[in-house]
């Protein structure tokens, strides 16, 4: 079975400046790491691979400036078998639509895959839309909010989807894309042994010229329909709830609140 995980390098901290002109993040000189949500996707892929058995492999695909090689190397240290990087100035400044389009082109170039696994969202873009949009470009079924992998079959995968008021069990035929929830598995740590073993492993670098659509207007900032009008810090507010009544009533109300917010299982 061929499994692909889409990963992204994100700023290592939340202290990131925003380019006022383009509305994009200034990434230069900021320490970076693999998007924490992608760790769950990679772990999920490793578990699927273990269930699928011999001959299966996990590949990773990322898009970004040359330094994003670090997250591909990190994926190797977590057990990924191969990696590819979409890197070209023409890809820069892409919005959700263009990012998913470029990744889809990368998938077409490096695939085919039976399952594509994405993290729920990134910690910098926060849209949670790139995975599903990529599947739309590829014309394959996709399921988001996956909270567990229940069965790995020869031609399909069974998953449980966590929705606000219910859970759905789905059987998804290959090829497909799933976006997994944080906490689906506890991600393994990068291995020093694998670091040594994969230090010289080649990574496929894909530039605009390597893709089947080479029109630069279809990529990056140029191709992005999203226009940033204004940037502002998000509003935040803290909600305080004071419970009234005797201890018993307060305890019951507190239990209800915790239950409503799914803290009690």
């Amino acid at each position: 079975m061929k499994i692909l995980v889409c990963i992204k390098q994100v700023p290592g901290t939340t202290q990131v400046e925003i380019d006022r002109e383009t509305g994009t993040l200034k990434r230069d000189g900021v320490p970076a790491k693999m998007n924490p949500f992608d760790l769950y996707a990679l772990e999920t892929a490793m578990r699927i691979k273990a269930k699928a058995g011999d001959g299966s492999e996990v590949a990773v695909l990322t898009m970004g400036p040359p330094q994003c090689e670090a997250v591909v190397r990190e994926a190797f240290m977590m057990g990924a078998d191969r990696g590819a990087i979409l890197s070209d100035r023409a890809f820069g400044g892409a919005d959700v639509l263009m990012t998913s389009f470029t990744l889809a082109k990368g998938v077409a170039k490096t695939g085919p895959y039976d399952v594509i696994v994405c993290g729920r969202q990134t910690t910098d873009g926060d849209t949670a839309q790139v995975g599903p949009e990529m599947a739309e470009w590829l014309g394959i079924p996709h399921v988001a909010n996956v909270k567990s992998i229940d069965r790995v079959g020869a031609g399909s995968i069974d998953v449980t989807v966590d929705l606000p008021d219910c859970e759905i069990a789905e059987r998804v035929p290959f090829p497909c894309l799933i976006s997994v929830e944080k906490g689906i598995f506890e991600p393994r740590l990068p291995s020093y042994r694998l670091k040594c073993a994969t230090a010289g492993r080649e990574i496929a670098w894909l530039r605009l010229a390597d893709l089947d659509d080479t029109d630069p207007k279809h990529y990056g900032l140029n191709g992005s329909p999203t226009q940033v009008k204004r940037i502002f810090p998000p509003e935040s507010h803290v909600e305080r709830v004071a419970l009234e009544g005797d201890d018993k009533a307060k305890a019951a109300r507190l239990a209800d609140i915790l239950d409503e917010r799914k803290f009690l299982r």
Partner: protein
Amino acid sequence: MKYKAFDAADLAALRAICGEGRVTARDDIGEDFCHDELGGTFSRPDARVRVTSTAEISAVMKYAWGHDIPVTVRGSGTGLVGGAVPLEGGILLDTSMMTKIVELDERNMTLTLEPGVLLMDVAKFAEEHGFLYPPDPGEKTATIGGNISTNAGGMRAVKYGVTRDYVRGLEVVLPNGDVIELGGKVVKNSSGYSLKDLIVGSEGTLGIVARATLRLLPLPKYKISLLVPFPDLESAVNAVPEVIRSASVPTAVEFMERDVILAAEEFQARKFPDNSADAYLLLTFDGASREEVELAYETAAKTCLAAGASDALISDTQERNEAIWSARGAFLEAIKASTTEMDECDVVVPRSRVAEFILYSREVQRRRNIRIRSFGHAGDGNLHIYVLRDALGEGEWKAKLAEAFGDLYAKARELRGQVSGEHGIGYAKKAFFEESASPEALALMRGIKAVFDPKGILNPHKVV
């Protein structure tokens, strides 16, 4: 010493010093103030006095000295050996309101503060200003005064040492109410006996720390942990001296076993990032640059692999560190939750004998037929060994606990270890300390106590 029976006049006098609201009378004092964290020792004070300044401490002590009233100092009450329990009643002098950070001296890299500041607030304040206060005991809600009184250690002792290494100066109130300054902001000091170092670790028996000047270090920018799986505990712990001898000293070296990890997983309802091995070492490295830290951990990883580790897993982000350290932080609570009652032995042995001691603790578990769990600071030889009561009846528990502790402390002595690595002697470990220390050393300690506190009013029946 015969103490005066505490009466209404004493209560009124204390209220005249500190005001009505900060002096609580015996019958209004909650149970929480009659014991410490481990709970084995229980005694109610006659009055709980919440002091707010050195002058108040001094005034309270002058009164107590003049009227032969015993005084026991208490911070957050997170001690584990009954050190803050007022065995003779009298005054419980509570410093938890003295939470002022008096001065950060960036040029001398010192932090001066009152004793009631919580350890977590000391660490946070230092970090916010680009400094590190290295001592890092697990109990972050302890006060700095309590940490100084027990010479608290913590996980970073391997590289940075313990609380005593970071106390530059102290303002101390003596039992008779006199206030003295010891040490200061100076880096070196060869001027007579080091009374400052004597006060550190004296568990509130010699004087009361009213203000402390701590030494800070520049904050290391990079931190990485290695979780190293080993086939068994013995090979894990035996690798430690090699790791510490290799090029770069880790800040922490912890050992942990599968059954404790499983208990923490269940307790937290969260999986540990790896469960492939029976035993693990957890190593942490810090440094000023990424390169420095990477070089350090690579050397250690190679050393561990050569010593039989199956791999070395790298934790280099906040999320990863959180996954490991939250489990490490839950060990004690997880063990507590797995049994009905427990008692702890906090011995320290030479680093080279740690494996031998832990294996011996397993032998005690078998021989005495009582469950024993352990984890701890393999890097500095300080072990936390928990004897668990489970379903034992009161009498049987007491008997078996005494036997098991007897075995463990005897073994520690044999290995040239000490009764307490970081919790102190207090009241709970006094008998073991008296067995372990030489009569000459005990006589000197009692002599010192008599010089500081000839009336014996300060924290009676503790340490010696």
